[in-house]
């Protein structure tokens, strides 16, 4: 019988309190509990995190096959969403 691999999990680590969980890589595990344990050993051997999330790679839905597709293009012409769009006189404080 050909060997079946343990499923692949994506690992997210919160570096310290006050930060978001950030994707750090992936690993194989038989179930979610083992995935967390493995993530602890593989990705946080030196206090790199205070919290770990794991999610099955097959459960991740991506915006599109291509990372730089038109889905993100519209924000390019909405410059008024950025603070630098607005001219404020130099002598106005705290802005």
């Amino acid at each position, binding site marked *: 019988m050909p*060997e*079946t*691999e*343990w499923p*692949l999990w994506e690992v997210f680590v919160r570096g310290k309190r006050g930060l978001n969980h950030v994707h*750090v*890589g*992936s*690993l*194989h595990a*038989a*179930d979610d509990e*083992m995935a967390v344990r493995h993530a602890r*050993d*593989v990705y946080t*051997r*030196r206090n790199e995190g205070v919290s770990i999330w794991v999610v099955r790679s097959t459960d991740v839905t*991506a915006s*599109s*096959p*291509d*990372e*730089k597709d038109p889905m993100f293009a519209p924000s390019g012409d909405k410059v008024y969403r950025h603070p630098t769009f607005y001219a404020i006189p130099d002598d106005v404080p705290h802005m």
Partner: protein
Amino acid sequence: MTTLQEQFDATVAHSDRIEPRDWMPEGYRKTLVRQIAQHAHSEIIGMQPEGNWLTRAPSLRRKAILLAKVQDEAGHGLYLYSACETLGVSRLELTEMLLAGAQKYSSIFNYPTLSYADVGTIGWLVDGAAICNQVPLCRTSYGPYGRAMVRICKEESFHQRQGYELLTTMMRGTDEQRAMVQESVDRFWWPALMMFGPPDADSPNTVQSMEWGIKRNTNDDLRQRFVDMSVPQAEALGVTLPDPALRWNDERGHHDFGEPDWEEFMAVVKGNGPCNAQRIAHRRRAHDDGAWVREAALAFAERSAEESRA
């Protein structure tokens, strides 16, 4: 409308990163799979020569350090396998290619560790050479590979320093201990130089790899950098590097050094080094002996999932 190839070329030309879901030329993907897999396998096989001394480390402190170091190397292998899997190969395929000899690992790990001083020499020279290779790879064009390299480089400095500290401790010891260090350096110096790969003239893939931004420096560049870094370290340690041609060249601003034995290098790469067969046999045994654990864990996970559904 730009073509996919043009988009890819533009991304690489801007030193931007290629990410897993991007279109990429088939040759780029193949080169990456080969290089990242070889790199991952090296970390995994690289645990063996040092693991050889785990049970015979001279103190609890040295044993704890060596254990942590070897565990790091396992971690490095896993970061790199993870990066490689984003290119559409599975871990099992990679393991099978290693065991079948279809993918290589660094030739340095086919040399034996004959004395405890080798643990120090490997940390100093082998991890030192790895650092030279790996620091520029943090800026490699493939995102997951670069990110894995960043994590690895953060950990390598501990590896090199513990090795160098081990050697300095032995050099402050007895004449016999100093002789042990020198003998170990004599054995590892040339194989460490070979870790950078064949001379540029015999490395036909380098040009394409550099155009793709996978590699950032040529083999000979990195080898020179390593020699220049190692000479003052050897002096501070009080050992002699076993190369009569080694001397400072004022004109070049670099050290001149002798030619490694490339015939020996090719023989080791082709499988005829002192430990090739032993390394693969050990890896195969570990893989086969672990099969029942992998199966049992999977069966347990499936049953638990069924029970929680019921």
